[in-house]
């Protein structure tokens, strides 16, 4: 197997898919009339390239089950959406099925069933993992195993009237992370990160003497944990090359959401300022950090970060404009001003894009 663009063979399905896409695009470009005017392959070269491309695509398909043409890609997207929706539906069915019958069972049977279910589903996920390359069924069964584990601890809490604590978040988060890293599942990773971030904030909240579940009432705690989550891939590397993007996505979305919450509701802040001043501070912080996120994402080619930061920049900006203008400005003028600012942003982004292209050309 020849190496990827990074100089090594693909180790994961998404790397193999990127390589297959590049080979397919190269095949299409070499057939373009404009290219034939500047680069002409001899018949022998053309034949050898065609053979090489077909061999590479066949090997990638055999080893990683990648899509080798546009139709297959569309079908794969459909399978991915169907398997995710199917997984959520199966999780719901398992939980509702248990709830429908558990009241008729003795305690020992209730406890046994909820304990065994996640273990059985974990076994099923492992069985599927060893037999398929595309991870559709592995992902489905892993999600069902996770949902079963959530139900497991929730039901035990109900049966024995245990006062809820934040420790369940730690168990669930750790389980989701193990599933994510074992099977290379990004959805599980996102779920695990959200749970562990919630646990960190909840522990801190409980230590301060408050109800642990009120951790979401203190967005600054959550924002700090989110910022740490964003930075994790900078210090820890993983064999799953698509995981750092998930850390950044989850960290940035939670971080900006917390800032947005504080920009709207300053009473939730630890800062010794009035609510109004807190809101102003966090509006400014939100605008500056989202702009920095756009810059960083462009510089590092982190598309997810650029998209998230751009979306929140617009939300922060429009939110500020709403607070300034909505009450006194005629509504038609307000929306015209918003539209004009939107056009200005498009021009600014286009100018920034042009500078980047120039820099790349030089």
């Amino acid at each position, binding site marked *: 197997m020849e190496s990827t663009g990074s100089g090594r063979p693909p180790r994961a399905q998404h790397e193999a898919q990127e390589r297959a896409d590049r080979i397919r695009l190269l095949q299409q470009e070499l057939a373009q009339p404009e290219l034939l005017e500047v680069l002409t392959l001899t018949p022998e070269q053309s034949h050898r390239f065609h053979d090489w491309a077909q061999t590479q695509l066949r090997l990638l398909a055999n080893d990683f089950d990648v899509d080798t043409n546009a139709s297959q890609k569309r079908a794969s997207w459909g399978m991915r959406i169907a398997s995710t929706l199917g997984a959520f539906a199966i999780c719901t069915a398992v939980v*509702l099925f248990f*709830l*429908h*019958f*558990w*009241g*008729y*069972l*003795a*305690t020992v049977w209730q*406890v046994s069933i909820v*304990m065994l279910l*996640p*273990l059985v589903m*974990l076994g099923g996920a*492992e069985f599927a993992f060893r037999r398929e390359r595309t991870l559709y069924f592995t992902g489905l069964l892993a999600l069902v195993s996770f949902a079963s*584990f959530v139900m*497991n*601890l929730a039901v*035990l*809490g*109900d*049966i*024995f*009237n*245990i*006062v*809820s604590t934040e*420790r*369940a978040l730690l*168990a669930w988060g*750790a*389980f989701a992370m*193990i*599933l994510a*890293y*074992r099977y290379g599942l990004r959805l599980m990773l996102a779920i695990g990160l959200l749970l562990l971030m919630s646990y960190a904030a909840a522990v801190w909240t*409980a230590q301060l*003497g*408050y*109800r642990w579940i*009120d951790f979401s*009432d*203190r967005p600054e705690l959550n924002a700090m944990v989110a910022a740490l989550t964003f930075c994790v891939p900078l210090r820890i590397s993983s064999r799953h090359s698509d995981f750092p993007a998930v850390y950044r996505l989850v960290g940035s979305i939670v971080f900006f959401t917390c800032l947005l919450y504080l920009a709207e509701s300053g*009473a*939730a*802040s630890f800062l010794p300022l*009035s*609510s109004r001043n807190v809101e102003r501070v966090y509006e400014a912080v939100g605008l500056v950090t989202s702009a920095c996120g756009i810059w960083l994402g462009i510089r590092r080619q982190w598309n997810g970060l650029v998209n998230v930061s751009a979306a929140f920049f617009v939300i922060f900006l429009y939110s500020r404009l709403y607070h300034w203008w909505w009450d006194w400005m005629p509504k038609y003028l307000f929306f015209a001003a918003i539209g004009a600012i939107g056009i200005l942003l498009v021009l600014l982004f286009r100018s920034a894009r042009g500078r980047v292209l120039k820099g790349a050309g030089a």
Partner: protein
Amino acid sequence: MKRASLVVAAVLIVIANSVALIHAWRNRSGKATSDLILTDRELPLVYSSEDDSAVGLTLSWRASNDTGIDSWLNVARLRALGFDTSVSPSSADAPEFYRRERPRRAFVALEYNGPAWEKARAFISKQVSNSRDGIVREPDWDKFSRLVVIDADLDSARLRTDHPDTAHVLIVPAVIGIAADRFDYLPEGHRPAPTLSGFIREIPSSVHVPLPFSEELRARVRRNGSVRYNVRLRYGASFEPWIVGFDFTPDDPAHLR
């Protein structure tokens, strides 16, 4: 090594379950912190949906004057519970300051069918007799819970020392909030002095009914539509309850003792 993470995942499930079961066992072994007989007034049935076959009760309680604001939760008590009460309630900063004070965890004492209940009943009756044109009517007392919150502390042991009767006073964890009332909703000249007071925001109330009690309860509800009962409820070392006995002769709970 290839299976290490699989083993870790399985072990995590086992450990989490073990921790929960050991916690439940430790709560139920040893001396009970409270042991009392309550009725369907204090532990009404929770009606689940068709999708949930479990049977549960909920602990129903009331504040001492039924307005949700307990007068015994005064400034000194709130300070002892960890609240910052440095801003005077008459200060212009008070509403914002106390809005930012988050509810705190503590323990509360709930008295069953004692002087606090008589006082609460008298308070409500007075409101009925003071109301014009019968706007506030005499309630159906048979549906009122006789569990009344009478005290709060950060230390459950100190609370039990102050209220040693385990057969009539429950000690349970709770969440307590603080509020500053400047009575801005009353016309000028009719406003009392601004006050700072506490309120019980939450007490864990859910009680699972295991077999065979749940089967009997379900059958009676299906037959008669409603049911009266007594429940012997015990609270363990972790202040978590479980049902020890169930009885459907509401006027004679003697054999539950």
